[in-house]
């Protein structure tokens, strides 16, 4: 990591906190009042759809930015227009996104807004209404995905079954678990445990771990209530 320029700045706070109860697999956004408001609006049943999308996109963007922070980079030096050199860093290539349809697609735009030409694969998983068993219906992934870091996108996890199924698909495509970062907004402790027990190498980025997940997310975001 490059040394931050002035070392005397008093107010810098980390934006991400490792949740100890999941042995370093789960990293949570530091909850500021601002982020709490985003979560509150998404949780509130009286929120209008237009507000819901606006606030969801903001929260997604923050999670995506944190996800990108987990990707590899190299230090480099460049020249500024004033003719001075600046020691910065350059993102490395070889990443991709994978969204778990349908609600994961809500996060695609957030990723696209940060990385204009990133490759995005899709996996369609449907839960059986009665058994809650997740079933893979469709998957389309970049051909060289096994060599890439994967940002897996799925906003709400209540059981973790869907993500566990998606991880199976990724393993079938010879992807190393260690290279998978799950971008998630809300997750239950049980879901986190389930996913980690099946894929101990995964990193989960989330904004909140709460016993009740806002399961209405996909329907409200896409307006299919």
């Amino acid at each position: 990591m490059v040394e931050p320029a002035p070392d005397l700045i008093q107010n810098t706070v980390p934006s991400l906190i490792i949740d100890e109860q999941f042995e370093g697999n789960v990293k949570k956004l530091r909850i500021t009042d601002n982020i709490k408001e985003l979560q509150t609006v998404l949780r509130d049943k009286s929120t209008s759809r237009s507000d819901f999308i606006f606030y969801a996109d903001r929260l997604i963007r923050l999670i995506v930015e944190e996800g990108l922070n987990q990707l590899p980079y190299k230090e480099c030096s460049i020249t500024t227009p004033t003719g001075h050199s600046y020691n910065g860093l350059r993102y490395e290539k070889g990443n991709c996104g994978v969204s778990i349809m349908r609600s994961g697609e809500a996060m695609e735009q957030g990723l696209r807004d940060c990385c204009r030409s990133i490759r995005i694969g899709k996996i369609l998983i449907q839960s059986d209404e009665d058994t809650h068993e997740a079933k893979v219906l469709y998957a389309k992934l970049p051909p060289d995905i096994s060599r890439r870091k994967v940002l897996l996108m799925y906003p709400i996890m209540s059981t973790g079954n869907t993500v566990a199924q998606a991880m199976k698909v990724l393993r079938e495509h010879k992807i190393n678990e260690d290279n998978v970062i799950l971008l998630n907004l809300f997750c239950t402790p049980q879901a986190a445990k389930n996913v980690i027990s099946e894929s101990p190498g995964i990193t989960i980025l989330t904004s909140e771990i709460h016993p009740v997940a806002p399961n209405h997310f996909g329907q409200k975001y896409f307006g299919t209530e």
Partner: protein
Amino acid sequence: MSENVFEFTNPPSSASSISDSGEDDDQTFIIKSGPKSPIKSPKSPTKSAAAKKKAKALLGSAKSSGRVVHSGSRTLYTAGRPPWYNSQGQLKKPFVIGISGGSASGKTTVARKIIEALDVPWVSLLSMDSFYKVLNKEQHDQAARNEYNFDHPDAFDFELLIATLRRLKEGKIVEVPIYNFQTHSREPTEKTIYGANVVIFEGILTFYSKELLQMMDMKIFVDTDSDVRLARRLIRDINVRGRDLEGVLHQYNKFVKPAFEHYIEPTMTVADIMVPRGGENDVAINLIVLHVHTQLQNRGFKLRSKLANAGCNGEPMPTSLYVLQQTAQILGLHTFIRNKDTARDEFIFYSQRLMRLLFEYAMSMVPFKSVRVETPQSVTYEGKRLTNLKICGVSILRAGETMESALCAVCKNIRIGKILIQTNFDTGEPELHYLRLPKDIKDQYVMLMDATVATGAAAMMAIRVLLDHDVKEENITLCSLLMAESGVYSVAYAFPKVKILTTAVDKEVNDKFHILPGIGNFGDRFFGTDYFEQ
């Protein structure tokens, strides 16, 4: 809109015209300087309204053509307001000139000539005419019969007048009533006068109140012979306002003359300067202008070079500074936008990503309240919502404007004001040229935006403007992508309650006030107006 500088009102007492026009709903104004032209032949206030209008139009055109400044690809059409506060951000009080004299003595002409000859921007003219009391029905009828005494001190609302001048003296914005001489009441709208470097205050009884006198730095009495004044009144009231000789004389003998002798003439003794013959007295006016210039110069100082040297080595940065955590993303984005070889579309893209992160961080510092909401999962959720304090954005043109879209992406339906501040190439000092702010900004939380802050001179001026509009200091957050240490120190020292928020702090500022290593001229790179070698 030039009314902020020039205001032509009819001389008081028997007046019967609307003193003002051209109101603006928003707090908008463009600063125009006086013309460079030397003193023209004197105009007496007895000229017809049409002639006045023409004079005003002429002044207007001279104003805009007199001050066009080209430098490189930049063209400035107005003169800006130089700093009106010191390096600690504290106000330098404006120079207040009081002008008194009998009715039709030529006070307005003297005021106008002083403004013209001063040739400095930011002069406000305040007229006592705006402060006539509202008349009741009975008084209104009296006025119609020429039986109401407009020349008596009781006809004026001195309380409001003192409060107004005091605020102007503090550099604050004021709302001046518009008096309707037909209905003898105040118009529902008010006229906005901004804090200025020179305030000229004219009227028949300007020296009547002790409190007013204490606020004046210079007191001028316009002493015109009473025969001349009566002659002017007769011509004006009969020819221009179509009144009859008898009525005018009646009013003059009953009210105007006694009031002059009782209330106006005695105040002559407090005056610093007597101007005989009114507006025709060019020698007196030139002497006054010379004196005011000297006074203004004594107050001036080099602000920016002082600011560039601000900062102390080794001391911790001020606690009001907040810098985004230097994560890989932040550093990587900085690498893109600082690189001189980055193409403009990438420059725009990556700088906007950085701005969005900046504003999400800025939003974490505004006040929130705890709420409890119902969820579709039938559990209640303890959360946070914004308080009723409204948030608005204010961008410092031009580079600050680039940040508006990122702010809008974070704050739904936010209102945005703009402030244009440009550097004067002769003095190297920032000058205020234009501003447009949301109307009720004083009760709002303000995200002040500028892409880069080097010496902090422009940011300080913008903060000063906000404070002059009664925004609370603790409700201002200065948001920028890059700051120099000197800028951080200057702003934090002058305005300790303002939150300073940025994504990176660089050590140095060069003698051209560019940040090093810096980012180059952000506005030029973003808008594509930068110079490139062929």
